[in-house]
């Protein structure tokens, strides 16, 4: 097993013989803590702002009348719905309790997302092989805690397999270097 997993895994053993009720309770306890009031405020505020922006942009497109609707009418109605619901959510969820709190492990996701963006940026320039190799290696070694040896070995194998399937086998036009 990898390091991160060892650090955070719940002790195995006694939890093996659980009844459904106990198992459900354990899932409940293991589930990450729900987001607090700030998370709710942020989420509802983003929704409200996006809704308001949608309303402004729709107004610029023109609303027209119900009998002669202009392109902006329907998006305007939807943006209005989002804004109203967003404002409602500000109040309804003011105590928080929905979604999940970010944890230390959430940094892994940020890191992972950054590598994906890197892949997208590099792929048209230098082909998919090197960026994919780097992505595999980073995800295995740093996000997954594999050893250097297995991370290098599996990354190379994976990229070779993808090359074989997508380029040699299927003949797709994915940008490639070789």
């Amino acid at each position, binding site marked *: 097993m990898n390091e991160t997993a060892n650090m955070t895994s719940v002790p195995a053993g006694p939890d093996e013989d659980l009844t459904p009720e106990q198992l459900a309770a354990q899932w409940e306890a293991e589930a990450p803590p729900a987001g607090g009031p700030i998370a709710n405020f942020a989420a509802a505020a983003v929704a409200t702002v996006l809704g308001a922006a949608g309303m402004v942009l729709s107004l610029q497109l023109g609303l027209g009348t119900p009998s*002669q609707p202009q392109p902006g009418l329907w998006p305007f109605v939807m943006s209005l719905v989002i804004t109203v619901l967003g404002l409602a*959510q500000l109040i309804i969820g003011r105590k928080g309790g929905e979604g999940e709190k970010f944890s230390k492990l959430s940094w892994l996701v940020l890191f992972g997302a950054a590598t994906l963006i890197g892949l997208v940026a590099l792929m048209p320039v230098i082909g998919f092989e090197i960026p994919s190799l780097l992505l595999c290696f980073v995800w295995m070694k740093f996000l997954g805690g594999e050893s250097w040896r297995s991370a290098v070995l599996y990354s190379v194998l994976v990229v070779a397999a*993808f090359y074989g399937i997508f380029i040699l086998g299927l003949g797709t036009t*994915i940008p490639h270097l070789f």
Partner: protein
Amino acid sequence: MDFLQPVLDGFGVVLAPNNLLYCLLGVLIGMLIGVLPGLGPAATIAILLPLTYGIEPVTAIIMLAGIFYGAQYGGTITSVLLRLPGEASSVVTVFDGYMLAKKGKAGTALGIAAIGSFIGGTIGIIGLTFLAPVVAGFALDFGPPEYAALALLGILLVATISNGSKTKALIAAAFGLLLATVGRDVFTGAERFTFGNLDLADGIDFVPVAMGLFGLGEILYNLEERHRAAKAPAKVANVWPSRADLKQSSGAIGRGSVLGFFLGILPGGGATISSLAAYAMEKKRAKDPSRFGKGAVEGVAGPETANNAAATSSFIPLLTLGIPANATMALMFGALLIQGVTPGPQLVDQHPDLFWGVVNSMYIGNILLLIMSIPLVGIFVKILRVRAAILAPITALITMLGAYTINNSMFDVVLVVVFGIIGYLMKKFGFEPGPLVLAFVLGSLLEANLRRSLLVLNGDLGGFFGRPISATLLVLFVVVAVWPMIQSLLARRKAAAAVDTFKTKENA
């Protein structure tokens, strides 16, 4: 026997060797991806959507049916072997399935689940074969106002039935409808929300949205959830259930099929409700209910049969009304649209070959699933033992490269990453991605029908209530929308009343 002729013709198409091969591939790959921990059927189907591009429509649909069944069963495998349900509808399978696996009877559990799924699915398809044309016939008179009302009701139902915050689910749904308006307006040709971007002028494709929200979003989410993964058992023996096991679970399979079929027609989480109901029913009927949770075969057979029957019968609203009943059906809807098939009441009449092709491909997918699942269990166990750290980048790369192959465009890959990040954030902040995707799929249809209705009704919104069917649907819409508010108000008043009586008692 006029009715049966197109059905039989449909079989002729489906049984062509080429189509069988694609169905087989679909089942196999569907199971392979579906068995990965954390990726449920919706994620699996989303990731595999590019596979169905570039093949002719009927073959593509047949392959999709294979992927659909394979993905469903993949979730069962992780439930039984890892105690990790792939999706809500296989949560109850965990209780007895995992206990059976611990007793060394994982094979029995998986075998019974496969047989139960097969029977439940088959009964679901037979019901669908007979019921769908009837429902479609009823819906043939629908005009734009009825469609608009129906789509609104469908989206609302799915959003309110989902777990978690209803307001947030509705916000997600409204965003889905808003996203669907990006691009050129069909009626006026005006560009909406494109910000001068040429790639956006044609609108946002459904596939990158689904691949991002369901596929990459889940993969990113799993990066921080990895510690939950359990170890797969070393070996799975005796995959064929014994005669005694079969006999013991035959009743559960029969009851689960019927229960699942009827509950599955209802919009929103039909499969989940039916698997829970089937488990509860079996436990109630059992002579010794205490066996449940300790490895009762019926506890696997009942829910697994019911959720598959329900998954199949949820095709009825999709194929006859053009309204997907849940997130997985929204994906199937999108996939069919890409193939040039618009699910709806006209489908049976105007394209009987396609309609029966879709229905019959399910028979084939289901049969192939039964044939494949049992002998292949050993391979899946091996896959489950591969470390998540190695699997995660592989699935991420499959998703990204797959997205590129759809249109040979980097823009689609960018969209997948953007929606992947949005999907992750939505999950963290308690927004369900399901309603968004569902609303997005229905968005352009809903807007077009609304605007057409407004033209027909001369801008008179009251006209929606002048037509019996659209009036009924809209009244239902209002009831569904307002009911939770009334409920919480009543609950609050009750609580207040209780406090009041308490206070008066204190004063007295």
